[in-house]
């Protein structure tokens, strides 16, 4: 192992002796079990992990807590992974982002060296505007230069799949530090159902690296023993009107708590000084995490730069971990730091009070700092001191991590004593616990005036977006002096850290430029998501419900080609749709119609109800008789169609189209609820299988299988019978969408397979299965429209050549009546007609109807009919063309085909074969 691994210390999370192999930019590296990618690389790898977004300056570990942008890497092909928190796993392929051709030599670094005059604040609004025609070229270059990584593979390929889980809880505690754990214990002891989510590597928060890891473990154990559901590590993503999604690996918990306890703590803040982005400049908190949790030496010789006691404590902890601390630079005046100076002196560490870190020196990493007294003015004067070091641990106070509280409705109030924004006016049901509420640490205070400046352009206020204090000055000079405007202009606070590290520095920077304080400047709006989350996690799994007919196994046994039709898996064809359709005309075919919507409508008001939802009359239907019906909307537009069979006085069996069944059920129940009638609707769609036995010889096939008289006189067209077929109870309807004699047989799904096999095995006739495509040909030959294929949201029964379905002479009101009355008076703008064309003319559905060279309509259905030996179809045309024999053109592949209008069915126009 490398010399950067420290001796074993208390509270470390790594398991020594258990090595893990991975690669970084193709080179094999080794880490330890318990390491993060970042800690393993810090122990044994390059110090520079990435290049910055705009200037491509080298960046190293900074916060070590998953907040800042400095360690974003690509892992196993997925970009945007934070190395400092991502647990190391065997065989991981880690690559740097944002540097070309390599991390150590980045050609785009030229932007920083020579190109800075061309990249002033808002440069994308200014520099690349002229000449306009060159924009595509600029864009290509900019896209290559900017951004955070690229995706491997096809853009359509899904690489993240997460399940969603809904969880209701009495209390959700976000944050598993001391305050969160204690709140969870308090709540669960009141008998409440508590969930606790924490994003750290282990429960305990700051206790883990601030010397209380034993207590942290004890509290965590207690919380688990009391029955709190622990989600760790897991990140709360935001507040969505009471819903808090928590992301935990492959699972997104959609948690809806009655009460929310936010214990997200406070985020250590950086300070701005020239060179504050150099590798080796870290948050003191980050340096401590690295040294304590992962036993990695963050540097050999450290300088701590602080505004309060937290930096002093950090210096002592770094010293205890075996890291030489050269000095502590404290902005507080010497008289306030006497106690701290004494504590440090015991360990031989010098405290330089009343001073500021004027500059960090170095190119690929920090090598020294210059310190000046705060009283000596801006320019390093005779009081300036240079201290050699390779680590600058910065402690700029803490800002409450209050995003979740703000999203829930809390207000951000400026607290002068600390120079931070704290949440106030929390909404009901939401409470904050611990330092998120702005608890003041001993010895904390605001950053003294003059400690931060502009100097040259190397004072970064926003590391994510490479925004310097000088840029802020320029933006303010150009008039962007409010934080929301400056944010949009500079893109400061808009990067991966989402303002955690730069909100306050930006506000302070604007305040300095405008001569106010950060409280006047305010904060930007906290928006979800709080944590970076892959879109695939939010999308979840694709839940595409698929339905299979009761006859599915039969289709597969027959070797059918299966196809999706809406949510249904349907048998498309068995041995060729054309041949199947022809066989129906010549002999007999069996078609699976199980996916039709099938409803039982029952009750004393059933007949009246159907009269009110259908435009035709159904109350006059005799028992065991069938009528075709079209459902229309209140605007009189065709919604769906199907058949209605009256079983007895109070019972109707209603069928709908396959695709429309769910919508029709919803529609019918809506009107029942509106009218409050004594009617019940039972959905039998899945409970019953159905098959259409059609063809001139279908009677011969059916007769031997049943005791029912299926003769032409005993069982005429549009009649229904119940009885046994092949030994199973069936409802047999004499109807069909085919221009041949036919029977639609409905039977409980469990019997459907038996019935199907028995009919196909008929000795009398050659019954063959016919698939979905044959069905489409057959219905088109009869000019039966399919709602929503041949109709759209503008189609009325009058336009769709179904005027006879509307009974305006009905004595009572029905849905769509008022609109249909008006439609009956008006001339429809276009009409649906059948057309024929020569057999060899293939017409694509959707083709334009052309009249005098101009588009005048569209083809909605078209097939070649073998029995008719021509192409047949349906098209919407201008009313004057809706006459028998009228001719129009159809645009197809650049040529115009001739089509002839036929207003009656192409096949069996009189219906003799169907009624046979």
């Amino acid at each position, binding site marked *: 192992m490398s010399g950067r691994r420290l001796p074993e210390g208390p509270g470390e999370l790594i398991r020594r002796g258990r090595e893990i192999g991975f690669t970084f930019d193709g080179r094999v590296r080794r880490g330890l079990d318990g390491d993060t990618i970042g800690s393993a690389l810090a122990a044994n790898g390059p110090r520079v992990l990435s290049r910055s977004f705009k200037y491509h300056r080298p960046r190293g570990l900074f916060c070590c807590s998953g907040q800042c942008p400095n360690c974003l890497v690509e892992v196993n092909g997925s970009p945007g992974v934070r190395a400092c928190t991502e647990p190391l796993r065997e065989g991981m392929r880690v690559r740097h982002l944002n540097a070309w051709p390599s991390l150590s030599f980045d050609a785009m670094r030229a932007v920083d060296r020579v190109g800075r005059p061309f990249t002033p604040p808002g440069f994308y609004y200014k520099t690349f505007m002229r000449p306009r025609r060159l924009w595509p070229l600029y864009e290509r270059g900019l896209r290559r230069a900017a951004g955070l990584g690229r995706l491997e593979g096809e853009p359509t390929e899904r690489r993240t799949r997460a399940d969603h889980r809904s969880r209701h809880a009495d209390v959700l505690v976000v944050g598993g530090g001391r305050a969160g754990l204690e709140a969870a214990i308090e709540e669960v002891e009141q008998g409440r159902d508590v969930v606790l989510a924490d994003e750290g590597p282990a429960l305990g928060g700051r206790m883990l690296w601030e010397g209380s890891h034993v207590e942290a473990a004890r509290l965590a154990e207690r919380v688990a023993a009391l029955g709190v559901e622990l989600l760790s590590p897991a990140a709360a993503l935001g507040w969505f009107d009471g819903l808090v999604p928590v992301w935990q690996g492959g699972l997104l918990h959609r948690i*809806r708590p009655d009460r929310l306890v936010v214990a997200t703590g406070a985020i250590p803040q950086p300070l701005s000084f020239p060179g504050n982005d150099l590798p080796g400049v870290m948050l003191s908190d980050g340096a401590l995490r690295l040294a304590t949790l992962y036993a990695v030496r963050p540097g050999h010789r450290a300088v701590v730069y602080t505004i309060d006691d937290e930096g002093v404590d950090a210096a002592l902890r770094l010293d205890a971990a075996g890291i030489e601390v050269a000095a502590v630079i404290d902005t507080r005046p010497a008289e306030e730091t006497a106690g701290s100076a004494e504590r440090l002196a015991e360990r031989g560490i010098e405290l330089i009070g009343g001073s500021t870190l004027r500059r960090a020196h170095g190119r690929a990493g920090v090598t020294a700092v210059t310190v000046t007294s705060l009283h000596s003015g801006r320019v390093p004067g005779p009081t300036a001191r240079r201290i050699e070091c390779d680590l600058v641990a910065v402690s700029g106070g803490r800002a409450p991590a209050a995003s979740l509280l703000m999203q829930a409705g809390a207000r951000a109030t400026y607290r002068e004593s600390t120079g931070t924004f704290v949440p106030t006016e929390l909404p009901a049901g939401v409470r904050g616990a611990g330092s998120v509420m702005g608890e003041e640490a001993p010895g904390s205070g605001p950053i003294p005036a003059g400690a931060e400046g502009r100097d040259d352009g190397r004072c970064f206020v926003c590391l994510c977006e490479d925004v310097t204090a000088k840029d802020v000055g320029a933006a303010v000079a150009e008039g962007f002096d409010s934080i929301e405007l400056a944010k949009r202009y500079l893109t400061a606070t808009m990067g991966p850290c989402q303002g955690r590290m730069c909100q306050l520095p930006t506000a302070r920077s604007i305040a300095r430029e405008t001569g106010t304080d950060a409280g006047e400047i305010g904060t930007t709006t906290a928006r979800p998501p709080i944590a970076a989350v892959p879109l695939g996690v939010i999308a979840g799994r694709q839940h595409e419900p698929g339905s299979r007919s009761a006859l599915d196994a039969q289709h597969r046994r027959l070797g059918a080609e299966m196809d999706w039709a809406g949510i249904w898996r349907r048998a498309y064809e068995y041995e060729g749709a054309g041949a199947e359709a022809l066989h129906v005309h010549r002999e007999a075919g069996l078609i699976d119609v199980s996916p039709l919507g099938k409803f039982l409508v029952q009750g004393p008001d059933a007949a009246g109800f159907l009269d009110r939802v259908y435009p035709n009359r159904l109350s006059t239907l005799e028992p065991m008789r069938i009528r075709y019906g079209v459902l229309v909307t209140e605007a009189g537009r065709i919604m769906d169609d199907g058949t209605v069979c009256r079983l007895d006085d109070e019972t109707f069996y209603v069928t709908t189209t396959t695709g429309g069944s769910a919508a029709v059920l*919803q529609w019918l*129940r809506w009107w029942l*609820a*509106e009218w*409050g009638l004594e009617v019940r609707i039972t959905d039998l769609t899945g409970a019953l299988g159905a098959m259409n036995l059609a063809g001139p010889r279908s009677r011969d096939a059916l007769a031997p299988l049943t005791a029912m008289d299926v003769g032409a006189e005993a069982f005429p067209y549009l009649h229904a019978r119940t009885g046994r077929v092949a030994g199973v109870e069936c409802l047999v309807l004499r109807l069909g969408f085919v221009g041949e004699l036919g029977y639609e047989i409905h039977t409980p799904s469990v019997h459907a397979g038996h019935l199907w096999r028995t009919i196909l095995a008929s000795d009398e006739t050659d019954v063959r299965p016919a698939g979905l495509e044959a069905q489409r040909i057959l219905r088109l030959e009869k000019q039966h429209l399919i709602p929503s294929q041949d109709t759209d949201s503008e189609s009325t029964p009058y336009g769709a050549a179904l005027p006879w379905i509307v009974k305006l002479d009905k004595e009572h009101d029905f849905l769509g009546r*008022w*609109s249909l009355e008006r439609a009956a008076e008006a001339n429809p703008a276009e009409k649906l007609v059948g057309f024929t064309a020569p057999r060899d003319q293939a017409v694509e559905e959707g083709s334009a109807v052309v009249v005098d060279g101009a588009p005048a309509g569209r083809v909605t259905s078209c097939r070649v009919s073998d029995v008719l030996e021509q192409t047949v179809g349906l098209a919407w045309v201008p009313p004057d063309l809706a006459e028998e024999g009228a001719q129009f053109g159809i645009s197809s592949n650049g040529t115009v085909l001739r089509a002839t209008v036929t207003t009656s069915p192409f096949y069996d126009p009189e219906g003799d074969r169907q009624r046979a």
Partner: protein
Amino acid sequence: MPFLVDCPHCGPREATEFVYGGEVMKRPTGRPPSRRELSSYLYFRENTPGPQREWWFHASGCGRWLIANRDTRKGAVLATEAAGGAEGS
């Protein structure tokens, strides 16, 4: 739609289980409506900024309609009631 709808049949459920059916409207009955009355019934909605009565269908639950009083500004359902008839009871 991250809010709860208290289904009278199933209890409080995520709004994503429901299908929105629009504002509760008065359907013209009795005499034929004028052209204006008909078009305002078909195409115009109050879109009240505040509490309004709405239809909701529990598609992923009991499959029944209910009427919710929802505050459109807060996106929160204040109260629900079963819709009438045998299907609603």
